[in-house]
Every structure is written in structure tokens, then in C-alpha cells.
């Protein structure tokens, strides 16, 4: 692949790889081939590359060093003891990664070897997909996927369109229409396409699926090039599937790793969980313990050896070589030997066990039937298993509004024409209505205006019709279903239908509308000025049957009001605001008549902008901006977006769990605010602090006013919460609650207002305010601003864990930015779900995901990690103590087999089973009592306290094992035949007690299933001793747990009594709104 190719500039593609004319020499350009390589390794480089990657991990590298020391220096244990576990760990990881890579290879091959048809010399040639070169003309048939990024040249349809579904790319299953440029439409046979002489100039590959600029120069016989612009609507993406079109011809422009899909595949950064940081900290502590032990033993060894008869008694003489070794070198090797002897204190298999736990544990999320949604026939999906425990650690939740909190299934509620309200009610049939749709109106507007408005609704959209019937019966409008990427538009078109205007679909560039008198009107669609999030409006330019050229525009009120003639606004404005307060999504509709002269100019400008290769977006935007002025306001529509099922309960639960919920939405403030009230993010008692353009624009100098407000709010909040943020959780329940509303423009004012230090200051004050508020609503956010907010909170002091949840493409940036990204498999496509770490069908699933799964995963992994350190300290401490009784000679207490197998098979499987199945609290309890979540917040179980607790228990138990056996060995014999045990028996007894205790340990922590391995010991008293020692070593912990439980139980009893009294005050469900209910419960804590 030509890696040196730059991403800037353009590339020229010769269609069919033919020179434009015989006179010109065709210079073959080098592009990369169409092979997709998603695999990391090949058969040859797997071993070295994989080993290199694995040894970059500190723990693995450490064990490699220990292994090398064992090989080179005379050490007490054979290299096998550390080599074998290391080999095991490396092998398991390599197998896992190799398997994953094999899957990738298989998937790659499937794609690379699939057959495609290429037109070469007017013949259809069968080829393997990977052989496609840039410039080849490819034939694709219905229901096939495109093998590379193609420019559509022609299709079997006469109008040169084809239908494509991009479900596998972004999950949008609706068919999208792609167009061929006018001049190539006719070339729909292999022969004719071969005669085409054309060159395509387009930008270098870039990952944005929805952006493409290019130009095709078609050389007809006259050798005069005809240039046509190419846009995303001409580019068929690799991975998409051709639908409802028999076959198409296209020319390959991007191949292989340069296709947009391949470019999108890369660059997903790895997220690391906080638990891993704790593990590293613990590793350092244990490394320190290890070094201390080795240093202590080395020192004591030389003190002990200073007595000559200890150093070299007659029965145990050194070799000549040993005597001659340089003393300092000997001390050094002794130190290394001790390190090797004690190195098992660092748990070698921990990483592999943790990884397996995460990997296997994540299945429980995708298996959970509570996450299954009937409607979309799907459950939860886990894209990353690395973050399971992070779900139990979330501090901040950032949620999108539309499609996340709300259903995103729009329903047309009412409209207003010239200030007169029209309301459609689906339930009751009103006999008085003049049309077939039930319609009530309060005050009729002018008939012409009414029809104009309804026509606008029918024309100003990008909705497509789809007939369910296979036979193309356009005569039966009842069969029509509307398809669009925006549910708002469908709602509007359906709304217009209720009022008698039915959109029948596009035919040959004509939009057909059936009016109230059942006549079909045909409008020629001249231009569509597409919607974008910045403009927040869209327009169409149509030619009426009468020949007039009209522009219809619909958009957000703030985007439309400044662009219409000022009179008439007031009535509509009031209407819009009232509807917004009710939580409806409002759009304003405007129109403008364009004089033919003007149209010519506009047409030229638009085409020019569309043809531009560089900065096409900016140019288009500028043209749009010029066109959409001086319009006449006709009316407004309001569409209801229903709250999602249990959205309010979920938010309440998250609040109760001590999480801060921020709503980040692109919607306007009033709508967002009412949604927030509806889902109980704000309570009636919540005092709202507003930082919006409205509050700021009152003053002339925005910045001063902003400054004033910030200071004022901070003062207010500091007064309310004099203490530090630590006591905030408690303070919430006792004090006045505050909510903050901020909009996008104010946010950008705060974040990058001016170059001086003041903006930084603003930011700090703003953050202080945010942290003191129970709920924050950010409205009018651009996608990038959402990510900005997340980043800002992420970098707060104490680096809180953030979670973002959203459903649309505009949430992707924040999903990628936050620690945990959750996608909702919503109606706005699958982009969010694809980029997320976990995806769930509905917002309400967040509750169980965090409160139950997150909690359990965190507790499990915390126990797993602590247990690993615990069991290895337990294991090594007797060995350390033994040095005091064997003259610090590095004599291992355990046999090499025990040393080797302890971590691999004796102890790692039980804890793995435990860490997968453990439920210290029942799932139902966890979901019903959100306050339990607070107990584990802030990585509570992996802090110094619990770590020391486990460490001291380990030390105690290790000492009991050793000294218990030590005293046992003071007898003459332990067997009834008087025979005597040796040092290896000593080690075996210690080891047996150790394995039993360590295995029993999780039982204390409440445990589910187990398997016990037998270890034979022949003497009764050894068994008695084993039982005794196990009991003694577990004794203190049993005692601690019991004492804790006594206290907890009495606390719970208190709580239950109070809750019983609470439950007397019944709580209403989602509606009626604005009822503050949860505070009763939260008082309890």
C-alpha cells in the first residue's frame, strides 16, 4: 500500500484505467490494492511480534528478568518455577490474541476472496475482490455489497439512481438513494461503459462517511471535457448493500485500506480502567516488600555467617570456587537469590486471570434478558470487556436528550398558521372537520395561507416513499410508507396528511402531492438545501405547476425568526414558546417567492459551490445563507417526542445512587427544560440558575454580564454550602437544590471568551458552580461542545469517572471522550452504538447496567485483585520466616512443584469462578436500592484501607501457618510408627494448610460454587493440626465480619423502620409531572 501518499490534495482516477485520448500517454498511478487487512499478525511475525507486545507489560517483563536471573545465577529454585507460570501466562494470552487474529484473518479473507465482476475491454471479467484496482469499472448486482468505494456511473434504472442500505456501516436500515451524474446515466451496458473516457478528480481518502468532494471530467468525442461535481450522493461506500436495483456500474476510487470503512475502523483508542491503576500501585507496594525482605535476609545472612562455625561447619563445607568468590559479588547474588525465592509475592497469573474474568464476565451483560428489547429484537452488546468494573465507579452521567431520554418517535401534535392554532387529535373523530382527517381548529386562518403551509409541509423535507407492494402501484397511496433519516420529517408529512395534503413521492424529479380536493399537484424539485446542525434549518426550491419558483424553509425558531419579515412574528413566537414549555419540539415554516432572474443567479451559485473541490462545505453554507433571507413566516409546527419508558425512574435512581446527571442536548432550552422536569432531573423545588443567551443579552457587554452572573451564582452557592465538596452528597438532601442551565453559545463564551487569563478564571468559577448543582442542563450544544464538557469534567480534581449515553451520530464525540461510552440502539442510526463500549436498547437499561452489573463487576474485580495479592503474601511469608531457621541459606520451604503450580492450578481457578459468580448482594436488592452504589464509589474497595486489611490478614495467616507447623514439629514423631518427618514434609503441611485456607477464604465472603481438591496426608495429628490452623487463621476475619454485621444489621433495622413510614406517602408515577418525590427517600441516608 502506498503509505507515503499524502492525505492532502487530490487524486485523479482514470475511468477504466484508460488514457483520455490516444494522444495522451496514460501514466499509471500507484494506489493501494483492494485487500483489507484488519489482522495484526501474519503467520511469520506472530511469535516475535506477539512476544514483544506481551513483554512490554511490566509484570511479564519482571518475570522474564527473574527467569533470566534464575538461569544465570545459582538460585534456590530452578528456572522452571518462574519459567513455567510465565510460559503459561504468555501462552494463554498468545492463544487468545492469536484466536482473535485468526477470526480477523478469516473475515478478511472472506471479503478479499469474494468474486466481483469487472468490465475490461467491454467484457465482464470475474475477479477476486482484492484484485480490484483504482479506476476499474465494477458491476454490482442487487443485494451484493460494494467491494470498494465506487462512484456510481450508471444503473439499470433510467434515471441513474440506485437504492442502497448502509445498515452495516451506520445501522440505518432505510434505503438511501444515490445518483449517477447526468452524462453517464445512459451507459448501462458493458459495451457502452467501455467507451466512456473520463477522469475523476477527488480528494484523498478521509474517514468521514458523509463527506466527499470530487469532480468528473467526461471527454466526449469532441474532446471537450464536461465537468460535473461529485458529492457523497454519488459515492457508494464499501460495506453498503445495493437494494431494489438490478445492477449498477461504478468506478473504483478508493480501494482496500483507503476505503472510508477501513479508515473508520482504525483509531479507536483503548480505554483503561481505574482498577488497573490500583493494581499498578499495589504492585509497587509489593515490589517494595519484596526488596525489603530480600535486603533483610541478605543482611541477616551475613550477620549470621560472621560466626565461623555457622558459616562453614565441618559437615557442610564450601567448594573451592565458593570460597574464592569475591564477597561483594556474592552478596549481590545472594540478594538476587532471595529475590528469586520471594518473587512469587508478585502474582504472575493475576493479569491473565483478570483478563479472563473480564472477558468471560462480560457475557453476563449480553446474556441479560432484562436488556432485551422486543421492538428491535436485540439485547445489550458489549464492545469492550475492559471496562466492566468501571460501570460501578461512575460519578457523572452525561446523557443526550432526543432518542435517549425521549423515544424519538415523533407525533404531530399541532400547528399554527399565522398565529391560529390547529390541533389534530387522533383519537376522536370530529364530524365537523372538512377533510378526511380529524381536525379541530380554533380560529381559521386564510384559506390560501393554510394551503401554502400544508404544501410547505409536504414539500420541504427529504422523506422518501416506499411502497410495500412489489408491484409498483403508485396509484394506491394507502400503501405508502415514509422513510427518512429524521423522524421529525415523517411526523410532519404524516401531520400534513391528516390535514388533507398527501405526499405521494418523487417521480423523475417531480414531487407529487395530493391536495385536499384529491388532485395531484406536481412540483419540480430544483434544489434541496440540506439540513445541518449549524444552520439548524433546511430548505427546498421547487417550481410550482404554475411555473412559480418557491423556496420553502423549515427550521428551529432561532434559525428562522431572524430571517423572516418582522411583522407577524409575535403571535407565532408566543405559540412556539408555549409549545416548547410543554415539551414539544417546534419548527417554524417560512417561504419565499423567487423571481426567475434571481433563481438563475441562485442556481448558478449553488452549482458552482457544489462543484467546488476545496472548501465545498463553507462555500455551500455561504450560498445557503444568502438564499435563506427575507422569507415570510407562515407558521409553526409542534411535534411531541415522548419520554422513554421509565426514564424518570432511572434518573431518580441514578440521583439516589449519588451520580450527577447532566443532560447535553442540541435542542432548545425551553423544550429541554420541560423534558428535564418531566424526567425529574429538576424538581419543582429546584432553584434554577440560568446562564443562557437570554439572561446575558439583557446587558450590552455580554462578558461583563456573564462575569456578574458567575460571581453572583457562586456567592449564592458558597453561602449555601460553606463546607467543601466532600459533604456534598449529604448536603443535597438538607439544603436547597440547585440546577444549572447553560447553552452552547454561553459555554463557548466561558471556555474561549478571550485570550487573557480571565477565561481560565471563568472556567474555574463555572466548574465550581457546576459541582455544587444537583443537575445541569446544557442545551443548544454542538457535538464537539458535548465532548468539550465531558473532557472538562473528566479533568476535574480527583478525576471523576464519566459516562456518556447517547443514540445519535452527534453523541459519538462525547461517547468516545468519556471513560465509559454507552450507545443506545436508537432510531437515528447505529453510529453511537458502534462507537460505544456498551450498547443497550433503552435508557432505562442504564439503571440495571450500573447499579447491578457495574456494582457486581466492581466488587468482583476488587476482590479478585485483593485476593491475588493476599494469597501470594500468604504463600511467601512462611518461606520468608523459614529463612530464620535454615541459616538464611535460601532454602525453599516448598517443593519446586508447589512453587510452580500454586498460582497456576491450585488457587487461580477457584477465585476465577468466584469472581465470575459472586453476588454479595442480590441483583434485585442492588437495583431496588440505589444507595448501595455509593458504597463502592471512588474506588472504595481498592483504596489503601482495604489493601492494608488484606495485607495484614495475609501476614497473620502466613505466620499462623508457619509457626503452627513449627510447634508441631517439636514432637519426636507425628506418626504412630515413630518415623520422623523431614523438611519437605514441613513444607507440604504448610502448603496444605495454605491451600485449604486460601480456598476457603472466599467462602467467608459469601460464595457460590466450588471444587475441592484432595491432598492426602497420612497422620491423624496432621489433620487435626490442619483443621486447627485453618480455623485459627480464619478466626480474626470471621470475628471482624461478625462484629461488622452486628452493627450493620442494627443499622438496617433502623432503616427499615423509617422506610416503612416513608412508603406510606405514596409516590405517583411519571405523570403528573413536577412532583418532587425522591427527596423523602434520600433523607434516610
Amino acid at each position, binding site marked *: 500500500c502506498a503509505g507515503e501518499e499524502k492525505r492532502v490534495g487530490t487524486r485523479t482516477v482514470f475511468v477504466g484505467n484508460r488514457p483520455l485520448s490516444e494522444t495522451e500517454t496514460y501514466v499509471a498511478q500507484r494506489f493501494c490494492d483492494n485487500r*483489507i487487512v484488519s489482522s495484526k499478525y501474519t503467520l511469520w511475525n506472530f511469535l516475535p511480534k506477539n512476544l514483544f507486545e506481551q513483554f512490554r507489560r511490566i509484570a511479564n517483563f519482571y518475570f522474564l528478568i527473574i527467569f533470566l536471573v534464575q538461569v544465570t545465577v545459582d538460585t*534456590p529454585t530452578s528456572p522452571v518455577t518462574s519459567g513455567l507460570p510465565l510460559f503459561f501466562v504468555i501462552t494463554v494470552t498468545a492463544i487468545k490474541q492469536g484466536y482473535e487474529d485468526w477470526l*480477523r484473518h*478469516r*473475515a478478511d479473507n472472506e471479503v478479499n476472496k469474494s468474486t466481483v465482476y469487472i468490465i475490461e475491454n467491454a467484457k465482464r471479467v470475474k475477479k477476486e475482490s482484492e484484485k480490484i484496482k483504482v479506476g476499474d469499472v465494477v458491476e454490482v448486482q442487487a443485494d451484493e455489497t460494494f467491494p470498494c468505494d465506487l462512484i456510481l456511473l450508471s444503473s439499470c434504472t433510467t434515471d441513474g439512481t440506485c437504492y442502497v442500505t448502509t445498515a*452495516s456501516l451506520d445501522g440505518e436500515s432505510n434505503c438511501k438513494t444515490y445518483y449517477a451524474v447526468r452524462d453517464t446515466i445512459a451507459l448501462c451496458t458493458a459495451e457502452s461503459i467501455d467507451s466512456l473516457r473520463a477522469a475523476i478528480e477527488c480528494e484523498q481518502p478521509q474517514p468521514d462517511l458523509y463527506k466527499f468532494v470530487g469532480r468528473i471530467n467526461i471527454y466526449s468525442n469532441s474532446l471537450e471535457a464536461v465537468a460535473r461535481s461529485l458529492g457523497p450522493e454519488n459515492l457508494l461506500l464499501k*460495506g453498503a448493500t445495493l437494494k431494489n436495483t438490478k445492477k449498477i456500474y461504478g468506478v473504483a476510487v478508493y480501494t482496500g485500506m483507503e476505503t472510508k470503512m477501513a479508515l473508520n475502523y482504525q483509531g479507536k483508542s483503548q480505554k483503561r480502567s481505574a482498577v488497573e491503576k490500583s493494581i499498578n500501585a499495589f504492585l509497587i507496594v509489593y515490589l517494595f516488600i519484596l526488596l525489603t525482605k530480600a535486603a533483610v535476609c541478605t543482611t541477616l545472612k551475613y550477620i549470621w555467617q560472621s560466626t565461623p*562455625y*555457622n558459616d562453614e561447619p*565441618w*559437615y557442610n*563445607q564450601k567448594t*573451592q570456587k565458593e570460597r574464592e568468590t569475591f564477597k561483594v559479588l556474592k552478596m549481590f547474588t545472594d540478594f538476587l537469590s532471595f529475590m528469586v525465592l520471594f518473587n512469587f509475592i508478585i502474582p504472575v497469573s493475576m493479569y491473565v486471570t483478570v483478563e479472563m474474568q473480564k*472477558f468471560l464476565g462480560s457475557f453476563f451483560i*449480553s*446474556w*441479560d*434478558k432484562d436488556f*432485551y428489547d422486543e421492538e428491535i*429484537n*436485540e*439485547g445489550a452488546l*458489549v*464492545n469492550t470487556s475492559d471496562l466492566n468494573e468501571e460501570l460501578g465507579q461512575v460519578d457523572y452521567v452525561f446523557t443526550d436528550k432526543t432518542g435517549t431520554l425521549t423515544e424519538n418517535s415523533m407525533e404531530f401534535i399541532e400547528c399554527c398558521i399565522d398565529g391560529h392554532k390547529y390541533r389534530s387529535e387522533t383519537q376522536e373523530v370530529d364530524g365537523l372537520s372538512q377533510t378526511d382527517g380529524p381536525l379541530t381548529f380554533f380560529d381559521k386562518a386564510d384559506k390560501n395561507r393554510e394551503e401554502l403551509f400544508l404544501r410547505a409541509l409536504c414539500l420541504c423535507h427529504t422523506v422518501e416513499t416506499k411502497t410495500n407492494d412489489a408491484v409498483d402501484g403508485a396509484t394506491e397511496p394507502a400503501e405508502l410508507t415514509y422513510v427518512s433519516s429524521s423522524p421529525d420529517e415523517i411526523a410532519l408529512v404524516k401531520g400534513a396528511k391528516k390535514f388533507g395534503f398527501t405526499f405521494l413521492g418523487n417521480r423523475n424529479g417531480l414531487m407529487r402531492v395530493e391536495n385536499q380536493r384529491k388532485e395531484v399537484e406536481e412540483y419540480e424539485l430544483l434544489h434541496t438545501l440540506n439540513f445541518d446542525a449549524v444552520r439548524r434549518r433546511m430548505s427546498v426550491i421547487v417550481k410550482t405547476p404554475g411555473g412559480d419558483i418557491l423556496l420553502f424553509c423549515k427550521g428551529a425558531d432561532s434559525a428562522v425568526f431572524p430571517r423572516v419579515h418582522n411583522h407577524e412574528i409575535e403571535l407565532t413566537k408566543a405559540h412556539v414558546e408555549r409549545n416548547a414549555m410543554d415539551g414539544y419540539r417546534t419548527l417554524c415554516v417560512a417561504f419565499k417567492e423567487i423571481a426567475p432572474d434571481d433563481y438563475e443567479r441562485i442556481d448558478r451559485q449553488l452549482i458552482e459551490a457544489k462543484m467546488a473541490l476545496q472548501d465545498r462545505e463553507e462555500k455551500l453554507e455561504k450560498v445557503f445563507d444568502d438564499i435563506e433571507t427575507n422569507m415570510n413566516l407562515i407558521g409553526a409546527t409542534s411535534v411531541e417526542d415522548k419520554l422513554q419508558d421509565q426514564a424518570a425512574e432511572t434518573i431518580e435512581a441514578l440521583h439516589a445512587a449519588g451520580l450527577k446527571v447532566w443532560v447535553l442536548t442540541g435542542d432548545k432550552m425551553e423544550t429541554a427544560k420541560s423534558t428535564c422536569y418531566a424526567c425529574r432531573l429538576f424538581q419543582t423545588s429546584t432553584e434554577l440558575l440560568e446562564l443562557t443567551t437570554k439572561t446575558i443579552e439583557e446587558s450590552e457587554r455580554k462578558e461583563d454580564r456573564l462575569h456578574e452572573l458567575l460571581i453572583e451564582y457562586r456567592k449564592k452557592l458558597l453561602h449555601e454550602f460553606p463546607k467543601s465538596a466532600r459533604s456534598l452528597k449529604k448536603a443535597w438532601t438538607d439544603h436547597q437544590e440547585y440546577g444549572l442551565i447553560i447553552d452552547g453559545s454561553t459555554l463557548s463564551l466561558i471556555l474561549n471568551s478571550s485570550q487573557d487569563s480571565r477565561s481560565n478564571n471563568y472556567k474555574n468559577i463555572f466548574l465550581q458552580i457546576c459541582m455544587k448543582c444537583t443537575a445541569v442542563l446544557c442545551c443548544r450544544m454542538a457535538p464537539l461542545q458535548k465532548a468539550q464538557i465531558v473532557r472538562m469534567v473528566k479533568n476535574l480534581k480527583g478525576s471523576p469517572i464519566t459516562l456518556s449515553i447517547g443514540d445519535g451520530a452527534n453523541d459519538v464525540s462525547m461517547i468516545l471522550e468519556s471513560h465509559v461510552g454507552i450507545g443506545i440502539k436508537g432510531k437515528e442510526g447505529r453510529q453511537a452504538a458502534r462507537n460505544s463500549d456498551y450498547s443497550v436498547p433503552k435508557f432505562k437499561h442504564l439503571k440495571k447496567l450500573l447499579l447491578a452489573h457495574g456494582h457486581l463487576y466492581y466488587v468482583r474485580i476488587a476482590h479478585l485483585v485483593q485476593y491475588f495479592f493476599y494469597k501470594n503474601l500468604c504463600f511467601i511469608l512462611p518461606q520468608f520466616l523459614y529463612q530464620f*531457621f*535454615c*541459616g538464611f*541459606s535460601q*532454602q525453599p520451604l516448598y517443593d519446586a512443584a508447589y512453587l510452580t503450580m500454586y498460582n497456576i492450578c491450585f488457587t487461580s481457578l477457584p477465585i476465577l469462578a468466584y469472581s465470575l459468580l459472586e453476588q454479595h448482594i442480590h*441483583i434485585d436488592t442492588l437495583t431496588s436500592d440505589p444507595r448501595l452504589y455509593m458504597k463502592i464509589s471512588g474506588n472504595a474497595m481498592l483504596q489503601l484501607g482495604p489493601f492494608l486489611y488484606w495485607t495484614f490478614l495475609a501476614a497473620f495467616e502466613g505466620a499462623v501457618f508457619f509457626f503452627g507447623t*513449627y*510447634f508441631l514439629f*517439636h*514432637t*519426636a*514423631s*507425628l*506418626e*504412630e*510408627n*515413630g*518415623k*520422623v518427618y*523431614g523438611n519437605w514434609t*514441613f*513444607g507440604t503441611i504448610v502448603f496444605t494448610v495454605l491451600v485449604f485456607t486460601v480456598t476457603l477464604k472466599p467462602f467467608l465472603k*459469601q*460464595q457460590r460454587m466450588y471444587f475441592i481438591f484432595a491432598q492426602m496426608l497420612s497422620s491423624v*495429628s496432621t489433620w*487435626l*493440626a490442619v483443621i*486447627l490452623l485453618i480455623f*485459627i487463621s480464619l*478466626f480474626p476475619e470471621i470475628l471482624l465480619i*461478625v462484629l461488622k*454485621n452486628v452493627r450493620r*444489621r*442494627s443499622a438496617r*433495622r*433502623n432503616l427499615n423502620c423509617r422506610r416503612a413510614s416513608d412508603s406510606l406517602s405514596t409516590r405517583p408515577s411519571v405523570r403528573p409531572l413536577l412532583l418532587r418525590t425522591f427527596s423523602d427517600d434520600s433523607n434516610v441516608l
Partner: protein
Amino acid sequence: MAMNCNPKDEVDGGPPCAPGGAAKTRRPDNTAFKQQRLPAWQPILTAGTVLPTFFIVGLIFIPIGIGIFVTSNNIREIEGNVFMYYGLSNFYQNHRRYVKSRDDSQLNGDPSALHNPSKECEPYRRNEDLPIAPCGAIANSMFNDTLELFLVSNESDPTPKPIRLQRKGIAWWTDKHVKFRNPPGEGTLEEKFKGTTKPVNWPNPVYMLDSEEDNNGFINEDLIVWMRTAALPTFRKLYRLIERTDDLHPTLPAGQYFLNITYNYPVHSFDGRKRMILSTISWMGGKNPFLGIAYITVGSISFLLGVVLLVINHKYRNSSNTADT
């Protein structure tokens, strides 16, 4: 499609990638395992469950402890088989250099190891160019005092009567029959050991350790016992058995005994001590007050804590009850 069909998904347990595929239901199985609803036995350590446990542990441990203690203390009267031990102190048989200074395959009768012992045996590997059998520091320092026990029956007969000490049956069965073997070959034991030399400190070569064929050479039980290195620097090893002759008389009747020690083994140089112990053995081994005492102690503590917890629990319940009302 390959890229979208991200293999990681499959590995992570995501549903198989089938965009737009047939409407195969993806509803997760409703099994107890997958829904994490396995029946569970959860021993919840509350006062209610643990208090009885404590009492029961106390009630079980104390009698066991008393039983062990009494048994252990009864190992005094010289009835049944009597075991004769020698004890050494401050002798580091567990020193690493010492522990590894042996060649197990030589002791197992491997001919090549016999003539070319392992390097671990240095500096007790070769003497005057002949391989040492058995090689190594352990064998070289074998205990070689001779202990003889005599009974002075009564005043009438002043001549001490020697007590019969059995040399066989003191080693582990596995050691005697599996781990230790004489080298193969024809002829006498001496011929089998041809080409080797005795350990430096030994007076006699290995084939002259005992007169009996099945207790000579590497399978000499004194050697085997010695080769099993002790765990701690103060240790005892089984020396001889005094078998009970008949049921009517005690094995060692009351009276005056002489112990005759042929002193060969130097211990002063490393500040060591020697001991001789005579002991009988019960079902639970030799005399060891530790286990009995420990059981009694743990049982008592457990019982006591049970009482304390009962009181605490009672108090808490009372206080929380009053707080609620």
C-alpha cells in the same frame, strides 16, 4: 463487511453480526446461569449463625484438646513399642548448600550416577580421583555414634543385660523400597560398589554399614533416616526400635539402665548438643503437648468470644429497639 463484522465482537460475546439478516431472535436464553440466578448457598456470617458455630467449635475443640493432651501426657509409661531417638541441636540439616548436596539417582542405584555423581555433591564428590558413594555433604556427615542400652535388672545380678535394639523398620517404607536401591550387578555388594570410594569422614565404606544384606549399602536404614533432612536446626531422628516381647511384661520394666555411647560424632565445634530420647507412641504420634494445648486454647477462646458476642448482640438489639421506638 469484514470490518464491520469485528471479530472482537464475536469474541466478546456479541450476537453474530448479521446486519439486515433473517429475523433470528436474539433474545438471550432465560437460564439460571446466564441470568445470574443460580441457586446459591450463602453462609452469611451474622451473629445469629456464627454464635452457635463459636459455641459448637468451643464444645468440640475443648474435648479434642483434652483428649490429645491426655494422650500426649500418657506417653510416659514404657509400654508397647519403645522408640529410641537421637537428637541434635544447632545442626543445620536444612541449610540449602547441605540439602542439595546429594545425588538421588546415585542413591537409587543408577550405575552411571554411581561412578559419576552429580555436581551438586561438591566438594564431597570425588576423593583421590574416585567417585564417592554415597556422595555429598549429607551422607558424609552421617551420625555415627553407637548407642547401646543395658538394663541392670536387680541388685542380685549386677551384670547389665543388653536390651535388644532393632535396626530395621525405622525408615519410611517408600524410602526403603523405592527411593533407595543398591546398584545392580552380579556378585557381592562390595563388587557392586567397585570403583567408588567411601565418604571422607566414614570409617568404613558403604557396603560395610551392616552385616545383614537387606540393610546394607544404600538401603541401610540408618543412612536412609539420615538422608531425610530435618526441617529445623534442632531435630531428632529415629535410631532404634525396642520391640515388645510379650504382653505380660512391660517393654522396658522399671529399673536402672545404662546407656553406653561410643562417641564419634563431634558437635562442640558448632556449639551443638546431642540427646537420646526414649518414647512410646500413641495413635497421634509422639508426645506433643502443643496440639492439645492449642486445641483447648482455641476452643476456650471461641467459646468465650461466643459469650462476648452474645452480650454485644443483645445490647445492640436493645439499644436499636429503644432508638426506634
